[in-house]
């Protein structure tokens, strides 16, 4: 072995070593992997199952028989009764759609500007955008509350979306700038030679190339706005405008009557589903953004 100097041959040998892994080791690897995965997935799956139990079973000692009667009772009660959270689900969707569109649009434009145009102060401006990443939004909550108040954006889904957009922009701009930097220079020069305008270049030449970056930005903005709690709790005081996570705190404390854990579980599952669906569908875009977000710091 020591005689082999050529890295290509060494790599081949290493690869052969992996391929020769005995079937038994592979079997135990899968067994261990399944066990580990269960630790992380089973609690979530368990809650989904529990949410179909009647409230009486959820608020009394668990037993095997209690899984005999699974029904949509909690969901029906949650989406129609006194605790109607359908409005809150819609509020969350409105905020998420606003946030996703605004963040993706602004981050794409800014990424285009920062990557392919040189202007005085562009480094400083980019630094300012990244600086916002260092500012924990938890620490500007009070002044932001007063600012939104004076702008009449308190108790407003639009106001909340603007706040979410701002704190998603640093990652978004960073991801989009990198996307535009990866576009081959010849392509941009060719578009210029053809006399394409800035807008036309962006829409017809560059768009397909930076679409993955846009997907990453949109995915992050969606997950952030869908799961955010503290900002929504602070900037919304009208029950009718509550987003889903905030509305669930009313369900938890039984603001409208007695505490009903069946409703709470059903609500939590409703909150969970879009995250899982979006993540599983767009997973490859997620990891890119995660690393970009971490590395930029």
């Amino acid at each position, binding site marked *: 072995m020591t005689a082999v100097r050529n890295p290509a041959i060494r790599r081949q040998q290493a690869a052969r070593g992996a391929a020769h892994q005995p079937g038994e080791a592979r079997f135990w690897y899968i067994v261990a992997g399944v066990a*580990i995965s269960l630790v992380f997935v089973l609690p979530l799956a368990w809650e989904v199952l529990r949410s179909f139990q009647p409230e009486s079973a959820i608020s009394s*000692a668990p037993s095997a028989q209690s899984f005999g009667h699974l029904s949509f009772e909690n969901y029906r009660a949650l989406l129609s009764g006194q605790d109607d959270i359908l409005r809150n689900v819609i509020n969350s969707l409105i905020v998420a759609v606003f946030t996703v569109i605004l963040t993706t649009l602004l981050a794409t*434009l800014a990424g285009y*500007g920062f990557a392919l145009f040189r202007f*005085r102060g562009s480094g400083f401006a980019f630094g300012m955008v990244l600086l916002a990443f260092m500012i924990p939004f938890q620490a500007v909550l009070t002044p932001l509350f007063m600012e939104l108040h004076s702008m009449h954006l308190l108790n407003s889904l639009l106001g909340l979306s603007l706040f979410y957009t*701002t704190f998603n922009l640093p990652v978004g701009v960073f991801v989009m700038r990198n996307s535009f930097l990866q576009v081959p220079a010849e392509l941009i020069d060719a578009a210029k030679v053809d006399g394409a305008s800035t807008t036309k270049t962006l829409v017809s030449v560059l768009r397909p190339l930076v679409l993955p970056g846009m997907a990453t930005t949109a995915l992050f903005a969606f997950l952030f706005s869908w799961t955010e709690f503290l900002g929504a709790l602070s900037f919304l005081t009208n029950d009718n405008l509550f987003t889903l996570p905030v509305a669930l705190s009313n369900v938890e404390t039984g603001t409208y009557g007695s505490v009903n*854990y069946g409703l709470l579980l059903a609500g939590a599952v409703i909150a969970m589903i879009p995250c*899982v669906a979006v993540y*599983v569908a767009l997973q490859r875009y997620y990891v890119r953004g995660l690393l970009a977000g*971490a590395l930029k710091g």
Partner: protein
Amino acid sequence: MAPTVATRPATEPQARRRPRRSAQSRRNARTGLLLAAPALLFVVVFALYPLGFGAYISLTNWPLVGAYHFIGFSNYAALIHNSVFVESILFTLKYTAIVTIPIFIVGYGLAVFVRGNRPGSTVFRTLVFLPYIVGLVTESYMAVVELQPTSGSANWLLSKVGLASSSTAWLVHYGLALTAVSILVIWFYAGFAMMMMLAGMQSIPTELYEAAKVDGAGWWTTEWRVTLPQLRRWIALSLIISVVGSLLAFNQFFIMTDGGPGTSTVTVVMSIYDTAFAQMDVGLASAMSVVLVIVVGLVSFLQFRFLREDGV
């Protein structure tokens, strides 16, 4: 941000470099600024301005509604005597100390497990990461239901193996509540730590491992002498992100303990939230926020130092 100021000097060095394109590059400069302006405006208006505004408010006795006066550094002086705030700092530090290392160790272990291209490893990565995606808020609500005495699944499971009685009231005792929240957070965050470590491990040149193999290094030696040193900056980054996250903890405690019993599990952010929105003392809350920004800023600064030391 006035374009006249920004563009005129900007084009000159460029024009010197590329004289033929001066008119075009001036137009380019304006276009670039125009493209970046909306994002910049958002950041300035909703992040940088509030930061400065908060520092200003912290020097006043600003009530949520009504007139205010300048009171200098009185709010900061009052912080020292504000026992809830001081205790919240100590509690937040304690919580951070408890969860940081377990998150890292579990994350590292998971990354070692899934890093190879073995059958199933990518599926395991996805599944381990799910709790992070679902979010701590949703999971805290679920935990509230399952940690109830008599009816919760946690006691049911733990009493089967004799670790707890079925009447253990997790969320109303300080030690138990802190334990429950910490376990939930470690479970929630391990997937993220795994992803960071995994990215770091994948960036290590394979030649290093081949060389170690050639030298006859065993698994432990390779891990200790090759992987860990190569991962230094990733580990630092991951620890800092996790520490900052813990210092900013709010959701899990607000939902699961509401700061109780008493005010024993009030975190710094909860204390700020309560001072601003329940006691309506915006000046004092802003002073607390400034302290928080400075602490988080210091931790982030450490991150930069680690990265620079390594980047040589």
